[in-house]
Each structure stands twice: as C-alpha cells, then as structure tokens.
C-alpha cells in the first residue's frame, strides 16, 4: 500500500464548505425576499402619490389592450381599465386585508391563549376543547361557512380568514403562557394585589409578545393568500373594487383569449407569497443555532478519510492492525483531535480490552475501524486500519460494506437505541444474514432462531417476533450479540456492551460473551471503562487517555503491576474486582478536553509524579519488559529494572 491509495477516498471537507455556502445562499435568498417585499409594500403605500390612472375608469373601446400598449404599461382589462393601476391598488388592498386579518387573529388568539394559559384548570380545558373543535375542520370549510352566514364581501372574507387562524395563535400563546403563569414575577404581582387582568396585560403580555410577532410573521403570507383566494372565488371583494384575488378571478373569464389579465395579478400574488416565505425561512434559519453548528447534518455511509499518507504495513501479522490512527471532529473552523495516533493489534481468537474514561477516545477508536464515526463532523485524518493484511480505510465502499457485520461485527452499548424500534428483532437478525449471504428468508430465520437460542434467550421461538421495546434490557443485548455473531465473524468490536445493564445482567452477558469466544474462537475488541469487566474477559489490555494509548500489556501483568501512573490510579479506584461500583470517577481532576491538550504528557496536570520534563515534547510509547509498553517518562513498577 502506498500513499496513492488515499486518492479515491470520498469527499474531503466539502460538506463543511457546502454548509457555509448554503447558509450564505439562504441569507442571500432571504435578502432578496426582503428587498422584493419592501418594493411591493412601498409601491402600495405610495399608490396615492404615484402618477397612476384611475383604477375604475372604464373605456370599453380600449378593452383587453396587451401589455406595453401606449399609455397602458400592463395593458387593460375587460372593461378597458388600466391593469397597472388596478394591480397596485389591488396589491394595496390585499396587503391591508391580510395584515388586518393577521392582527385580528393575533388579537383574539392571544386573548384566548393567555386566558387559558393563565387561569389553567377548567377554563383552560374548555377553551382548548373549543379550539380543538375549530381545528378539526379543513380550514376552508370553516371560512366558507362563515362567509355563507355573513354573506359574500371583503370584510366578511377578512373575518372568516381571521377566525380560521385564531386556533393557531391561541395554541402557541397558551403554551408559552402556561410556562409563565407560575413564574416568580407573576406570583409576586399576585401577592402585590394586582388584578388578574392587570397581571395578564402588564406581566404576561410583554413576555409573550415575541411569540405573537413570530406567529404573525409566519401566517401573514397565508392570510394574504387566503383572502385573495376567497376573492378569487367571488366571495371576497365585490366589483368594482378589486384586490389581487378578484382581479385574477375576473381575468379568468377571459383566460384563453386574453391571458395577460390573469397572469399579471397571479404573478403578483406569487411574488408576495414567495418573498414572505423567503424572508421567513431566512429568519428561522438564522435563529436556529443547530444549523450553524452543523448539528443538522446527517452522517454519511462511511467516515470521511482525509489523510496524507498511509503507514507501511507492520511486520506483525495480526488479525486487526490499527496504526497511528488519527480521527478528528471538524466543526466549522474548529478541529477536535479525538485520536492522536492510536496503534493496537488484535490477534485471532484474542480478547483485547480497551479501557479509559469517557472522552478518552476509546469509542471513537472502535467506530473508526469500520468507518462508522459520524461524518460529518468526523474525519479520519491519518493512520491505517488493516484487517487480515488489507487496508480498509482507503478501500472502496463496497469492500468495506462486505467486511461490516460479516468479518467484523459490532455490539453497541444501549440496545434500545441501537436496535431499529419498528422492526421485529428476528427480522433485524435475518437482515444481517441476508446483507451478506444469498439465503432464503426461511433459512435465515432458522439461523436467527438458532443464534437466539445460543445466546440463551428463553422462548426464543416466540421472542423472535417481538419488537425491541417488548424485551428487557438484558434480552435486547442478547439480541445484539446474536446479531453480531450470526455471520460467524473473525472479530467482534463490543463498545461498552454491558454499561446500560444492571449488575446481575452484566455478569450474565459477560459470561455469555466469554463462553461464545471460547466456543467459536472469535476475537474481541472490548471497549469499557470498567477494570472488573476487563479482568474477567480480556487477554490483554490497552489503556487510553486523551486520544492515545498510554499503556498496554497482558491483563494479569498490568493488573498486578500497573506501570503508568494513570493505570495505577484507575486500578486503585476499583474497590474490589468483580463487585460494586466500578466507575472511573474517583480520580481527582478532569480528563483534558481533546481540543486543548497540554504539550508533553496529557496526564501531567493530574499526575503527582509529574516533573518539568513531562511537560515538554512528545512522550513515546516505549517497550516495558517483553510484552508491555508504556507512555511515561517515569513508569512505576514494583519489579525493579522493568523499564527499557
């Protein structure tokens, strides 16, 4: 393998640039919306001052003049009236009607919402029931019923549109009011003897005002469109007065012969609604911090690989060879170095325990092996992962996919979150088989059942048709293990598989894993923060701290005589192996943030043996005895002369 292998790895850094571009574009679109809307509003506000013709002046001799006719820039309508003038006056009317409807809905919606939210209890219950009833209608039916009762006309259409939108305001504002109604300042006002009405107006209202404004800005476009729609149907503004909707409705009668009389007002409605939408989207995006932080991006099928060179293959013919692995998280302009050169090997049939506090990078190491680190923001920035001698990080995706779940499989921590909630567990196992082997569904199912029995699920033949939420945590994890075993992999990567379980179930799962390993000869990379678990299961240990391996060697040797001060402290924290609380939080100080590593030894701030030399320069992982290695300038040892 050479550096040439890096070339075909997919998209480097493009998503970050794309995200930025998109935000920029969105802002530009929002600005375009703002400009358009301002222009439209200005035109309609200034309508009386503009040198426009009389919008009502009929001249049947001049009817249906085309646009760009002399004296009539946009032509004339069926009565020979100037379309430009009618358009601007119509826009003015539509905007006014939409705004008034919006204010009306906001006012009554707020009154209902604040009343319901403030008083709570039965008042709230009845008001919200009534609101729910209103919402049970398709909106136009309600509007039509109101117009039918009051009679067609612009004011009645406006009332109808406002009423239809009241529930939206009432619900939103009630929600906010409920959270405010029991705040201290409201209680204080009550104690001060203020009347309920005064509290609602002077204490609550100012606090819900932003919600009202936002709700108005999101609905005003709708209301303009809805009133225009009612006018279009002939139920709104009545001739000769025309808003945009009734202009379009009148134009429709001559759609085929003189389409311009329809196209002009139709386009205007489109422009208004579009600019309102653009502006609204822009504001919403700008207010959404998740968009900027990149939290709304979805992980791709594999972690992005962006490395300069691939390390030479090692002499050690292990099953899994991780070399100098460097995985980073790139968020905006920041880079968090989660792994700074992790090297480890797993031999066939061996169990390696990877141990460390949370944030040490042990899970990132596990996920990097098969390119499962969420990406973006994850990027593998250097190193290599070799499975049976083949480099996998640079391999084509189809090759990587064939390894996943077939030769190397995973068991994850929380089986409720990691199993698909809507598929039966049996089907999820069947899928794992069929992803790699062309076998019939019934054969795969028989195999799944066999595995469920092998992981000692009682009543496996009925459990196989359960959904994950119908199983206990321990059962779910057994399903996860069955799924990992189903294709007889060479290596299982188990990422804290027992952490979410209670102690008895933990012990059962561990002994199950141990049995399966001995029976099937499968190698395990076991990620944990728990030395007790490691002692029970693993042949060798690798201790991680701040994205590096700080000590590695045979389990018994390290447990008996830890060389790194950090390992020593970890082991000292374990009260009694195999029992009780075995969390790793008893060490003073916090693990360092991986974006702010001190020079030299990362453990120095928490180490009581630290010397000035520890704080300068890179500290290598040196051999310590024949089978061990340690990353420390002053390793501790009970046996003298262990250090190289």
């Amino acid at each position, binding site marked *: 393998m050479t550096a040439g292998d890096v070339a075909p790895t997919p998209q480097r850094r493009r998503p970050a640039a794309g995200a930025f571009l998109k935000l920029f574009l969105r802002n530009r679109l929002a600005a375009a919306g703002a400009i358009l809307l301002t222009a439209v509003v200005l035109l309609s506000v200034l309508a009386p001052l503009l040198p426009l013709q009389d919008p009502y002046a009929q001249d049947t001799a001049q009817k249906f003049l085309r646009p760009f006719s002399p004296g009539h820039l946009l032509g004339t309508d069926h009565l020979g009236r100037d379309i430009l003038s009618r358009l601007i006056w119509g826009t003015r009317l539509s905007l006014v009607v939409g705004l008034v409807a919006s204010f009306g809905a906001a006012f009554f919606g707020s009154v209902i919402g604040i009343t319901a939210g403030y008083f709570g209890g039965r008042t709230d219950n009845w008001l919200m029931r009534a609101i729910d009833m209103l919402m049970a209608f398709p909106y136009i039916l*309600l509007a039509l019923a109101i117009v039918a009762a009051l009679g067609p006309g612009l004011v009645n259409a406006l009332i109808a549109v406002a009423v239809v939108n009241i529930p939206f305001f009432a619900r939103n504002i009630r929600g906010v009011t409920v959270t405010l109604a029991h705040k201290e300042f409201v209680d204080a006002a009550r104690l001060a003897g203020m009347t309920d009405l005064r509290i609602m107006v002077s204490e609550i209202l100012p606090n819900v005002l932003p919600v009202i404004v936002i709700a108005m800005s999101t609905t005003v476009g709708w209301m303009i469109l809805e009133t225009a729609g009612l006018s279009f149907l002939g139920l709104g503004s009545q001739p000769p007065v025309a808003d945009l909707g009734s202009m379009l409705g009148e134009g429709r009668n001559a759609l085929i012969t003189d389409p311009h009389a329809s196209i002009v007002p*139709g386009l205007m409605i489109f422009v208004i609604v579009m600019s309102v939408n653009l502006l609204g989207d822009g504001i919403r995006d700008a207010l959404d911090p998740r968009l900027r932080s990149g939290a709304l991006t979805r992980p791709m099928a594999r972690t992005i690989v962006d490395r300069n060179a691939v390390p030479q293959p090692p002499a050690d013919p292990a099953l899994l060879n991780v070399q100098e692995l460097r995985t980073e998280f790139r968020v905006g302009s920041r880079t968090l170095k989660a792994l700074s050169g992790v090297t480890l090997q797993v031999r066939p049939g061996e169990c390696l325990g990877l141990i460390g506090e949370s944030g040490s990078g042990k899970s990132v190491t596990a996920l990097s092996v*098969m390119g499962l680190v969420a990406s973006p923001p994850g990027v593998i920035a250097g190193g290599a992962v070799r499975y049976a001698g083949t480099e996998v990080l640079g391999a084509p995706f189809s090759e990587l996919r064939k390894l996943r779940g077939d030769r190397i499989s995973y068991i994850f921590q929380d089986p409720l979150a990691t199993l698909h909630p809507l598929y039966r567990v049996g089907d999820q196992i069947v899928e794992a088989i069929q992803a790699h082997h062309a076998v019939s569904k019934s054969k795969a199912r028989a195999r799944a059942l066999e595995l469920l029995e092998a992981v000692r699920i009682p009543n496996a033949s009925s459990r196989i048709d359960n*959904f994950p939420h119908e199983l206990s945590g321990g059962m779910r994890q057994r399903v996860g293990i069955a*799924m990992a075993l189903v294709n007889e992999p060479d290596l299982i990567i188990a990422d804290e598989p027992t952490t979410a379980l209670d102690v008895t179930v933990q012990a059962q799962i561990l002994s199950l894993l141990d049995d399966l390993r001995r029976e099937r000869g499968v190698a395990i990379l076991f990620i944990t923060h728990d030395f007790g678990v490691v002692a029970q299961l693993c042949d060798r240990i690798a201790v991680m701290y701040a994205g590096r391996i700080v000590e590695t060697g045979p389990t018994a040797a390290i447990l008996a005589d830890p060389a790194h001060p950090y390992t020593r402290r970890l082991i000292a924290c374990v009260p009694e192996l195999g029992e009780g609380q075995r969390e790793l939080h008893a060490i003073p100080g916090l693990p360092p943030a991986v974006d702010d590593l001190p020079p030299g030894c990362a453990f120095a701030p928490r180490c009581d043996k630290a010397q000035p030399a520890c704080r300068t320069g890179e500290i290598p992982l040196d051999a310590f005895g024949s089978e061990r290695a340690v990353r420390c300038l002053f390793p501790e040892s009970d046996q003298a002369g262990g250090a190289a």
Partner: protein
Amino acid sequence: MGSYILKRLLAAIPVILGITVIVFLIMSLIPGDPATAILGSYATPENVEKLNRDLGLDKPLVQQYFIWLGNMLQGDFGRSFSLNRPVLDEVLERFGATLVLAGTSLVICSILGIIAGVVSAARQYGVADKAITFIVLIGISIPSFFLGMMMILLFAVNLRWLPVSGMYAIYGGGDLPDLIRHLLMPATALAVVATGVIARLSRSAMLEVLRQDFIRTARAKGVTERNVIWRHALKAAMVSIIPVIGVQAGFVLSGAVYIETVFQWPGVGRMLVTAILTRDILLVQGGVVIVAACYVLFNLAVDVAQSLLDPRVTT
C-alpha cells in the same frame, strides 16, 4: 388493535358533535329572518311558515339545535331550494367527485413529497438537495388556483394535450382513460403545495433519523446504503411524516375548492361556492357538516395507520 380503533372511534364522536355545534352557531349569525334566508327572497309566506315549523325556527336556540341534529341523524339534511333536491343526495354525489380529485392529489403529493425529501436528505448539501430545495420553495409559493390557470393555458390551450376542464368528456367520455385525462391537471395543480410541504418535512425527519444509533447499527451490519436510507431510515421517519400527510389532507381538501372552480370539476367545493353565491343556506350547512365529519374520520384512519406502523403507539 381492535380496541385501539374502537377507542379512537369513540373519541371521534364528541369531535363530530362539536363540529355540528360550531356550524349551527355560525349559521345562527345569519342576519334577518332565517327562514327567508334559507328559502331565498322569492319565498311564499306559506313556505316560510312551513319551514319555521319543520326546523323549529320559532323555538329557542338550544331546541333548534337538537331538532336539526335529530333530523341529520335520520339522514334528513333538508332540501336545497336552488337545486330542488335533498341536500344529502347532492352532497354525496358531489363529494364522490371531490374524493377522486383530492384522493389522487394526496397520493401524488405523498409519493413525490416523500421521494423528494428522502433524496434531498440523502444528498444533503449536494446538487440534488439544492435543486429540490429551490423547486420546493417555488412550489409552496404558487397559489394553486393561479398554477391551475397557467396549466390550462399551457397544456390545454397551447399544446392541446389535455382537456381544458370538467371531469368527463361530454361526448363519448365516461371511461377510466377519459377520467384520467381530465384528472391529470387539476390533481397535479392541487398537489403542488402539499408536495412541497411534505418534501420539506420528510427531509428534516430523515435528517433527524439518520443521526440515530440504529442507523449506525444497520451500517455496522453491512446493510447496503440504499436499504439504510429507504428501509431503515424511511420507516422510522414515516412516524413523523404520516401525521403531516394527515394535516396536508385538510389543505388538499381546502385547495380542492379553488381547483374545482378553476377546472369546473363537479365536486363539493364548487357546489359550496355556488351555494353561497345563490344563498342556498341548507346546502352549505349540510355540505360543511358532512365533509368535516368525513375529514375527522379520515384523520382517525391516519392515526390507525400510524399505530400499524409503530407498535409502540398502542401498547
């Protein structure tokens, strides 16, 4: 499952009753003498008196409501004076045409919207995503009635591919291909806005789901990326997409009023508009109650569909 459906059905009854109350209250806003309003200005005094007796219009409001409700429960929604036939017959006949139109639209917007949203999410920030986002933005901004008119100009008048309006050809029509030719434009015009809304929501639902742990599990199993997106992620995203489709059904039904007018589709929406313009109050009243009640039942069906998809709902 059966008990769940029953529970939902029982819960729908007060909602439908509430709908009748609201419609009744709105109709009681009619200014002037209701009997005259219902019968129109050419009503004879005898007819006015008979209607007053039938509907109990001389009784107190509460009693009037129960008389009206009782009549409806017996299938008597009154007579339309402008059409001179029972309201129920007219509404049911017209509602069939609306269901064909709105149903087709709903199918179109659900399928296209979901596909667009999934593709958009799977190619987030790619060219396809940006193109879809832009088209969706235009789609949700076009008033459906204007779009319908422009489609008539282009496809019926200029290109002569499709008929201008109506549900069937007057001569020699009436078969399925004829219906489809007439249905194509109005159903599409009606679907555009809802497609955009569903696409937007499907995209964000997919982005949300694709970050979940079970997606990583599927990838760790070696499931092909196509199955990860279209089976694992979409199935989970459907849990939040289905309610949106339920809400959009209300908007499609509402939009049908405009589209039926533009394309002269003989549906209940156009019937309501005509009834309002001719002041045929009983027809409006009956039409609104029947369609709104059906919409409630439709939403119930959506809830049931949701529970079939998500076993966690009913347990």
